């Protein structure tokens, strides 16, 4: 099984850049002190970390705009039309949409709380991009390999609803306020079943590290098969977490205009649009990591490609759901979360405990 060694590669790249190019250049110029500084290990590590961050972001960003393209194109096909057609296969439509927003005027409503209003997109986008750093793409392509990786991911995931509440309040608009309130109401309804489903995974694998979880699945079986109930609960929960139809209540377009983001225009809107798909990608990635064997697959394709392929397939299912289902109501999402998903998740935990206790795995 092949995999791209991100850290090793970046280390080599940094060494080459610092030692063989810049260091040699300054040595040749006679600036030995500066050359020594550039060739020091500390600076090398910092540069390497930066480069890794940039690489992870670039891959995430490419996946992100591909997902937007995938959604628009596939949704178009589900609706019996062609979808976007700017550029090859319509891929450049998102780029045009994104670039355009940077030319737009920035409007801050007169009565808005300006500080919070400006802070919210930063927090929303920042925390969502941060998610990319917690998700490994393969055994060697990761940014952080924390022992508590799963916990870290969900801790970062859960910030956004509060940011939405803040943004809805700061915009000083009634629609955004209701949208923000809905985000807060929604989070208490699906987070608990979601975490219970994760707990079952942790019980079986005995680890919170993505690498270990995937290694366990490679050794035994994809967790989606024994924990099928948990998988379904988790998938529904992650749709709600990523705020996609049918659980996109905070941005319900039918009744709340554009939901909590009504007052955000220009590049803030463009970046927030992008961020929604970062969260969608992160959700798909977590589903793949926890239940669908991560980068497990036949070895003729690199692990990273397997991982991304699975993530795109999971996202395609999300698009399919979006094409088929209407939006549920606020009280209905609460009753779904507490009356349906929570018992199912509890049953799933029992199944996991039973499997562990009986020594099946």
């Amino acid at each position: 099984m092949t995999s791209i060694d991100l850290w090793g590669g970046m280390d080599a790249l940094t060494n080459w850049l610092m030692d063989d190019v810049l260091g040699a250049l300054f040595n040749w110029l006679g600036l030995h002190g500066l050359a020594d500084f550039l060739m020091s290990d500390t600076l090398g590590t910092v540069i390497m970390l930066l480069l890794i961050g940039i690489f992870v972001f670039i891959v995430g960003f490419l996946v992100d705009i591909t997902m937007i393209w995938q959604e628009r194109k596939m949704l178009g096909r589900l609706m019996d039309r062609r979808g976007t057609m700017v550029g090859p296969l319509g891929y450049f439509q998102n780029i045009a949409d994104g670039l355009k927003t940077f030319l737009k005027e920035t409007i801050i409503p007169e009565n808005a709380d300006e500080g919070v209003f400006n802070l919210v997109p930063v927090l929303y986008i920042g925390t969502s991009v941060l998610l990319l750093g917690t998700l490994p793409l393969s055994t060697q392509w990761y940014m952080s390999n924390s022992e508590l990786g799963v916990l870290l991911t969900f801790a970062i995931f859960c910030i956004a609803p509060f940011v939405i509440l803040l943004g809805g309040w700061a915009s000083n608009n009634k629609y955004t306020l209701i949208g923000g309130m809905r985000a807060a109401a929604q989070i208490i309804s699906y987070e608990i079943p979601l975490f219970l489903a994760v707990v079952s995974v942790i019980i079986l694998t005995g680890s919170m590290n993505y690498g270990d979880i995937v290694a366990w699945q490679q050794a035994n079986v994809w967790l989606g098969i024994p924990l099928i109930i948990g998988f379904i609960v988790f998938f529904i929960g992650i749709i709600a977490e990523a705020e996609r139809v049918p659980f996109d209540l905070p941005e319900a377009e039918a009744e709340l205009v554009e939901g909590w983001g009504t007052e955000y225009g220009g590049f803030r809107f463009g970046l927030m649009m992008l961020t929604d798909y970062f969260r969608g990608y992160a959700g798909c990635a977590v589903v793949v990591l926890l239940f669908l064997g991560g980068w497990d697959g036949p070895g003729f394709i690199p692990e990273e490609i397997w991982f991304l392929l699975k993530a795109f397939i999971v996202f395609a299912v999300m698009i399919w759901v979006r094409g088929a289902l209407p939006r549920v109501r606020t009280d209905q999402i609460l009753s779904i979360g507490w009356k349906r998903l929570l018992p199912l998740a509890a049953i799933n935990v029992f199944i996991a405990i039973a499997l562990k206790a009986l020594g099946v795995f």
Partner: protein
Amino acid sequence: MAKMWINMGPQHPMTHGLWNLRIEVDGETVTNSEPVIGYLHRGWEKMVEDRTYPQIIPMADRLCYGSSYTWSHVYCLAVEDLMELEVPERAKYIRVIADELQRIASHLMWLAAIGPDLGNLTIFLYAMRERELFMDLFQSLCGARMTYNYTRIGGVRNDTTPEWERDLVRTLDFFEKRMVEYEDLVDRNVVFRMRMEGLAPLSAADAINLGVTGPSLRGSGVDFDVRQDDPYEVYENLDWHPCVQPDCDVYARYRVRMDEMRMSVQIIRDALKKMPKGPVRVKPPRYAPEGTGMARMEDPRGESLMYVIGDGTEKPFRLKVRSPFFVTLSAAPVMVNGCKVADVPSIMGMIDVCMGETDR
């Protein structure tokens, strides 16, 4: 959270037209509501007093753009009642066919509109796709996609062709298959049912008292259809029955409209079979007599009525339009109060908004 008033409109994705629903919300629950209309008021009734009788037909088309044919039809019926004209038999059948085609097209527009209201865009595109077929039929019948100017005082403008009738039958066969697709998408979908069932109850007594007509009334279990109870044209001779649902909720209103589309297909088939040969138009007098004329008919949205007063000249003295949605909208607070904010679009979408006829 304190109670607050929200303006849903004039620019709001829920409106489907141009009006403003002011709602008072307590958290997510609507406690009070008040529709504000008049954003499309153009003085239609005043302007037609300055037009001759035939000139008003295209104006009547633009009363409601969702179902333009039925409005020019009811106008011609009212003027024929005033002039005491008898329309040739074939023209009556053609009018009924066009009427039912318009009803299907209008209901498809409604079906398209409720999709985004409930948060699903697919049904919008499916319904619009089939609506194009009916637009094509109208286009080959009278040359326009939406505002047809087809019916005339004393008949219709032109006869149908055999090719058109063949296309019509083919389209109806195709459409019936597609109806199954919509029902798969909506009726067999748990979330759609969850959003519609038991929502916005409107009891039969309330509906009758508030003057609600059309599918919304039949969705409350009242078997009233102008086509049956005050038959015009040739509905008496055709094999059909009104579609009634007893549940009083949004889902019942949805079912009534879906059934009506099927019923319209049945009516058109029957009318095509029974249609006689003959002329399609008689020449109307230029000057209407003094007196009044009144016609009611079943618009896709309910009972439409036109009341025309002639004063012996070539222009009407007064032409009053009873718009079905105008009255149904006045019943909106009864349905909306007490529901959640998220349900407001689906309730309002389910009574089939058309503001052109409401504001006139």
